[in-house]
């Protein structure tokens, strides 16, 4: 039985950890809005612990599969949809590191938490860059990729690179700000930001091309539209954490002064947040006026794509609220936090139902 599980344990399972991990940050941010929400900080710790359990549990079959069933792994890597989910596991390391950075001090104290989050950072960086190169190479050389294969899950590799600087600057925020590790974290973060940002634009254009000049993907890929929220939302998170890192470095980080960049960052972050919000509405329109209307929205594991991008948008909302339109955005944060919990609950129940019908052992290609 265990061998069968390992054989069928596809790369997409990291998405379930991602969708749970980000909730610890949405809870932490919501807890800061007002006194009645303080308990959410501890619910966030609960989500952090659940994420850790899921990560450790999923990592075993995910890793073993590379050694026990390399042919299955190769087949998945070449798959135009499933292949893009390989970076989800290294993304989980970055998210676990971010959770450890924010909530770990409550469990282990600052010293241990900040060191552990750095270990997660480097594990995530190595995995993301390896899969990034592998996937682009595979896409470039694969003669079987056609226009109709383009879908928003192609955003996952750029997103994986964009998420690296989030933990990079979170780590520079306090503990590592004045150490020799700070320039290393900064350079890795900036390289990843450049790779993620430009790949997001290139890949986005390819997918846009398909959506306009070809039919839109079938219902089981409908949730991937939500992934479009993530890139700009993550850039917003990065920008606000970056400004906090500059502030923590006594107002000047590598010659970048807080006073000179705070205003432009507020403008850029607000505009990018606006794009994510627009995309959220667009996703809802596509979902309800097309997929639900034509009854083409089957229960799939891919429903996890509804969780993380929306949660990233909630985190972006909470962080942006610390800079602009605080009252409006904090109100929105609470409403959105309730929404993401509802979505997460629905997806967890949906996944159990999906497993119950034996879909795990019959992967669709």
């Amino acid at each position, binding site marked *: 039985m265990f061998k069968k599980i390992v054989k069928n344990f596809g790369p997409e399972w990291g998405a379930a950890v991602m969708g749970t991990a980000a909730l610890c940050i949405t809870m932490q941010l919501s807890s800061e809005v007002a006194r009645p929400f303080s308990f959410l900080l501890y619910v966030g710790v*609960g989500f952090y612990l659940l994420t850790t359990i899921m990560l450790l549990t999923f990592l075993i079959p995910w890793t073993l599969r590379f050694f026990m069933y390399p042919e299955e792994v190769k087949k998945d890597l070449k798959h135009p949809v499933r292949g893009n989910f390989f970076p989800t596991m290294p993304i989980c390391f970055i998210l676990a590191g971010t959770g450890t950075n924010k909530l770990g001090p409550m469990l282990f104290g600052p010293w241990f938490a900040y060191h552990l989050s750095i270990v997660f950072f480097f594990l995530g960086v190595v995995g993301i860059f390896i899969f990034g190169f592998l996937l682009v190479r595979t896409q470039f050389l694969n003669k079987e990729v056609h226009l109709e294969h383009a879908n928003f899950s192609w955003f996952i590799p750029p997103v994986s690179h964009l998420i690296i600087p989030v933990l990079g600057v979170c780590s520079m925020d306090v503990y590592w700000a*004045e150490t020799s590790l700070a320039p290393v974290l900064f350079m890795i973060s900036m390289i990843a930001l450049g790779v993620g940002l430009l790949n997001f634009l290139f890949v986005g254009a390819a997918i846009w091309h398909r959506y306009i000049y070809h039919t839109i993907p079938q219902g089981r890929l409908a949730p991937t539209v939500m992934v479009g929220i993530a890139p700009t939302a993550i850039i917003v998170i990065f920008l606000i954490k970056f400004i906090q890192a500059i502030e*923590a470095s*006594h107002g000047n980080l590598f010659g970048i002064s807080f006073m000179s960049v705070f205003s432009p960052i507020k403008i850029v972050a607000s505009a990018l947040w606006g794009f994510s919000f627009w995309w959220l509405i667009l996703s809802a329109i596509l979902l309800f006026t097309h997929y639900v209307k034509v009854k083409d929205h089957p229960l799939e594991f891919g429903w996890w794509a509804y969780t993380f991008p929306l949660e990233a948008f909630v985190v972006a909302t909470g962080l942006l609220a610390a800079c602009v339109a605080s009252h409006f955005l904090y109100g929105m944060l609470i409403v959105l936090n309730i929404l993401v919990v509802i979505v997460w609950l629905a997806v967890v129940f949906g996944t*159990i*139902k999906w*497993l*119950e019908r034996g879909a795990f052992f019959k992967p669709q290609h």
Partner: protein
Amino acid sequence: MKIRSIIIALVIVLIPFIIGIFLFMGKSGKAIDEKVHFITDTRKNNKGVTYKGIKTDWTFCPDWEYKPLLFKAEEYLVFVFHYTNNTDYDVQLMPSYTFVSPGNRRYSANEEIAMYIEDKVENELKINDETPITYKIPPNTIKHYIVAFEKPHSLNDFYVDVDVFRDVTLRLHYKKENGNWSNYSNELVKKYKGRG
């Protein structure tokens, strides 16, 4: 869905909330003991510093003991700053704080610890902490901000830079005298504005 599946799903979704409720009750009750005592409050003896119509007061706790759930307790230096706007117009504040120990070792404020102890500080001092990076203070209004620093071992003197004004930094000096912390001087230090 089968009953077994519903139970599995319920267990998964309830784990974070049950853990959260237990932790919240443990932390907000007295189950996890944390020692707290503030020794300085400049509001009591009118020792705050006024510059350009903004009065800066502070409350200081030199040995706030915070106990992580799985590790032993550690002490933190906790400051609560109170900014009063005595001008006739709104003021936008973007303060930043630096702790400097002997040997010019500089430390940033620990946002995480400040976040965990926020409720307790607010209850103790009957205040509301500001969350945003930047906040507006209308005329004749007070805003409060909690700052926590990790405490280096065998500390006998230090200063804290409060970077709240464009042209000067408020520097608060503390040293240990007969085992007690004393705020022996405060100064407004001019900021360097060159290109080098």
